[in-house]
């Protein structure tokens, strides 16, 4: 299994542990992720798009064209990049005038894009290309004691005409993976309700309130941790958790793990390799519960 890999800006910066753990489990599962050389910003959901849609789509298209050269579909880790690249792909497909504009831009760079590849999220690969069976075969430490709250958020599963590997209202992909690892999924509301990550820089207070609600519902459902598949959600839920606590004067202390980290734990990979020391809310108590 070989794919063109689009890490996205966060995985190179604040979400290093996502990339590390992804690499680690990919090795175990025989997934070959080849980073697109000279990739650039995905094009942004809104910041550049609102300013100039064609600019945003052209930035996306450059990445897509580089990936197309590699002859495989593009895999992203970030839900936002997943959406942005897919949206560009879709709009160029539907709108020949737009495609022409973008073709001009790419032409100046001696690039071209035929629109033959798909943009996929790593979770989709795990579930549909690798398969639950292969994942379960590699489980060395069943997560018997672990109660997890899988958190899907927004653009991983929506809108259905773009994110189509799961169901928009009641997604199950992460739940299925967690079950295979032996963990228990807690029942909690709002696993697809937006955490507000796209507002954290500009409307911090609003974003924190949205995050707080989510953290509290998961905590009240007695989850040991939240599991996510997006560096934006992770940043909001994990790195900003202290701010949520201080702003609203609540005690949460709920670890937030990347899905790749949880899989890595179950595969018996070591803590450093999975970057677990990089999570802001320490998962150490949780690991000791699992006797790691």
């Amino acid at each position: 299994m070989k794919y063109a890999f689009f890490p996205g800006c966060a995985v190179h910066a604040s979400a290093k542990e996502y990339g590390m753990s992804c690499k680690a489990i990919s090795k175990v599962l025989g997934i070959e992720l080849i980073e697109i050389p000279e990739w650039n910003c995905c094009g942004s959901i809104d910041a550049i798009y609102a300013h100039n849609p064609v600019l945003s789509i052209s930035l996306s298209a450059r990445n897509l064209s580089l990936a197309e050269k590699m002859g495989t579909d593009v895999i992203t880790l970030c839900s936002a990049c997943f959406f942005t690249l897919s949206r560009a792909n879709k709009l160029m497909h539907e709108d020949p005038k737009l495609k022409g504009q973008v073709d001009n831009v790419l032409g100046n760079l001696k690039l071209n894009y035929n629109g033959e590849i798909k943009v996929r999220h790593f979770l989709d690969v795990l579930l549909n290309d690798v398969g639950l069976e292969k994942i379960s075969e590699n489980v060395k430490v069943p997560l018997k004691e672990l109660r997890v709250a899988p958190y899907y958020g927004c653009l991983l599963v929506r809108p259905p005409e773009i994110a189509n590997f799961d169901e928009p209202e009641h997604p199950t992909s992460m739940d299925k993976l967690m079950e295979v690892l032996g963990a228990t999924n807690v029942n909690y509301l709002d696993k697809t309700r937006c955490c507000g990550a796209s507002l954290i820089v500009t409307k911090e207070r609003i974003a924190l309130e949205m995050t707080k609600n989510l953290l509290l519902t998961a905590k009240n459902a007695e989850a040991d941790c939240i599991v996510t598949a997006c560096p934006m959600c992770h940043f909001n839920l994990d790195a900003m958790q202290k701010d949520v606590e201080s702003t609203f004067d609540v005690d949460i202390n709920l670890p937030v793990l990347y899905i790749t980290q949880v899989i890595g734990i179950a595969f018996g990979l070591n803590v450093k390799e999975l970057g677990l020391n990089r999570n802001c809310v320490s998962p150490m108590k949780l690991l000791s519960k699992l006797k790691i």
Partner: protein
Amino acid sequence: MKPKQFQKIVSEVRDQSFTEEVQKLRGGENILDCIQCGVCSGSCPARFAMDFSPMQIIKMIHLGMRDQVLSSSTIWICASCYTCATRCPRGIDIPMFMSALKNIAIKNGFASDDEIKPKFHKSFTEIIRKYGRMHEPELKMKLMRKSDLRELYQNAVLAFRLWRKGKVKLLAPRMDQLSHISEIFEDLLEKQEEEASK
């Protein structure tokens, strides 16, 4: 949240060309199809912070209430989470036209000074132009109101926390083909600005 002011809908506040303008935007094509059912607003996770609900924004667009729409907080609070669009019975791409409204608001100077979002958009775009990729610390620096000591302090605390966890990459990202990015921006941004200035 801005206090909601009582307003009368009279012809002076209406500009029917605004309705047509929005209809021409990507996402605004079928805006007249809205039946005001409120699914978007009931679905919106950030609704609590908006001065007008997304449904009300659409109604205001129908009536051509240009200034009220462009100065509303709603368009800046939309988090593009797509819950509304997924459920809209009329297939309206609400986040998409919210994006487009932001663009009009910026162009027409509706985004007020204390509105950080336009600045965010601008800085974000500048950084991508400069490096091809995001450089978070620089973005944060650009957006910080240097006069606000409390904010400076809070940011320093956050930065320290992130730095300790290896989440701050001080060095700017590097791309060998940065010229590509410059060309894309020149092609599109400058052209657009030229057109705008004409």
